[in-house]
């Protein structure tokens, strides 16, 4: 039971940061950014005694408005499932934070601190499993609303989400092969190193040993550099899973009013709305852990940082400082990934539904399979078949 307290603290920390701080702030960022991109001033009206804080009070005003709105259940709808659907959509998204490491493993004398809530051996599979349950939220929402637009939206959502789940899984198999693990902590640890960009020349006997100046050309051992195609495909798939533009076909307002949540009001609509934004944070955190080196600072491995600070402050403080630095690095990378998603969301128009499905089955699926084969061949060439 002594594991319980740290686990609760870590859970509270990640929920407070991701759900409590990031999600409301990015609703504001989204409004501000769309305003900048469309040459408007943007959200700036909500104020408390004349203080607007650049519009940062809008999330607060939204919550107040949603809480005081009437919670309408349409006539002829299945009341129980209608009320349940937003919860099914929101809870799995929040639960995915359990396996995402936001810091490394630190040793303070006797105690070891591992900054992840549940360090599962099958971590990434847990994320996929949980994400596939979230599909039911949208499907049930559309059906239980007794509305044709909603039903069409949820049919689109279920087909789109199932299709992209397939490619999402396949697109990172190459990454599993490269890091030889499914545990997210181990993946991030493996990315806390560097590799020589031209090291393969030495391996294949073109050089006895690389000249020193060529050895200096190094890259961090990030998933992004090992699996660039995998990164692009994974990002596309998770964005399609999240159903935000340009993949917002299930809620295309020009065709389906608001799609699967047309009949939702008040805080139940708010749950759908928030789970979308929380998923933006989940996607950012997951791609950071998988492809952007997690908490690792490029070219500065953990031992180097601790080794450099220890003579000044002592081992305990050095480890603590390193931990703080790593957590800050992780969240900075998360912010970059959120920014990238926002850029994509406000840049690209929405394609037609058949184009979205074609992209998945006719382009991404063959590409992801090819990626797996090529990765396997490269690994075979490097290791020579030895495990």
């Amino acid at each position, binding site marked *: 039971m002594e594991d319980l307290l740290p686990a609760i603290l870590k859970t509270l920390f990640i929920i407070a940061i991701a759900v409590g701080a990031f999600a409301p702030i990015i609703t504001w960022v989204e409004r501000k950014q769309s305003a900048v991109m469309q040459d408007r001033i943007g959200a700036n009206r909500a104020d408390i005694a004349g203080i607007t804080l650049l519009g940062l009070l809008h999330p607060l005003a939204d919550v107040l408005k949603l809480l005081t709105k009437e919670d309408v259940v349409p006539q002829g709808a299945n009341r129980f499932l209608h009320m349940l659907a937003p919860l099914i959509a929101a809870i799995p998204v929040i639960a995915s934070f359990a396996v995402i490491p936001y810091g490394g493993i630190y040793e303070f004398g006797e105690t070891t601190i591992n900054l992840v809530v549940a360090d599962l051996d*099958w971590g990434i599979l847990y994320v996929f499993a*949980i994400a596939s349950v979230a599909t039911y939220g949208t499907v049930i929402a559309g059906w239980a609303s007794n509305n044709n637009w909603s039903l069409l939206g949820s049919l689109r959502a279920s087909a789109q989400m199932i299709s992209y789940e397939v490619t999402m899984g396949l697109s990172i198999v190459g990454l599993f092969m490269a890091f030889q693990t499914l545990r997210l902590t181990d993946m991030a640890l493996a990315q806390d190193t560097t590799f020589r960009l031209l090291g393969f020349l030495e391996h294949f006997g073109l050089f006895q040993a690389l000249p020193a100046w060529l050895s200096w050309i190094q890259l961090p051992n990030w998933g992004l550099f090992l699996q660039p195609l995998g990164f692009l495909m994974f990002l596309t798939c998770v964005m399609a899973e999240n159903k935000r533009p340009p993949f917002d076909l299930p809620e295309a307002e020009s065709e389906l009013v608001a799609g699967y949540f047309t009949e939702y009001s008040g805080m139940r609509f708010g749950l759908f709305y928030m789970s979308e934004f929380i998923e933006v944070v989940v996607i950012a955190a997951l791609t950071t852990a998988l492809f952007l080196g997690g908490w690792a600072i490029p070219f500065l491995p953990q031992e180097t940082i601790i080794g450099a600070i220890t003579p000044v402050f002592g081992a305990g403080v050095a480890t603590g400082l390193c931990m703080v630095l790593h957590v800050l690095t992780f969240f900075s990378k998360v912010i970059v990934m959120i920014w990238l998603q926002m850029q994509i969301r406000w840049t690209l128009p929405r394609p037609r539904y058949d184009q979205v499905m074609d992209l998945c089955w006719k382009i991404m699926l063959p590409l992801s399979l090819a990626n797996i084969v090529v990765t396997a061949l490269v690994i075979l060439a490097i290791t020579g078949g030895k495990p």
Partner: protein
Amino acid sequence: MTAQAFFFYFAAALAVISALGMVLNVRNTVAAAMSLVVTMIALAVVYVVLEAHLVAALQIMVYAGAIVVVFLFVVMLLNLRSDAFSAPRQRLLKAAGGLLALGITASFLALIPTALPAVQELPEGFGGYRAVGLELFTRFVLAFEVSSLLLLAAMVGAVVLAKRRID
């Protein structure tokens, strides 16, 4: 009671209750399908308690996450009512279903061992993706390849059925 025992009994009870909910929910097919999802997830919890982590993840990803969604998809599109089949045919279907259920129950009863086997120490990494993958590609490679052929045939069949015109 240990935490494992608690989770096992909780998940097992949930699985049985939701399975009953699926069978008894004859009026509302979508609610029945959702009960099936709960059964699948409860079974996954049982697998986790049994240290079969990979199977648990696959159970949720494949059964709960994909197959039942497709069920729901079909149910929603067809909007089946109970009068879709004629009364004699319904009686026939019910009798056939009852017989099948009896047969399966009988064979299960025959399979249940009377005494519990001795508790074995699990090897390191039991039920993980490494152990299962190694077994799958060494000892059971033939079965693996045969089942992939079967799936390929099913896929081709689905494409042929779904396509209106094959050129």
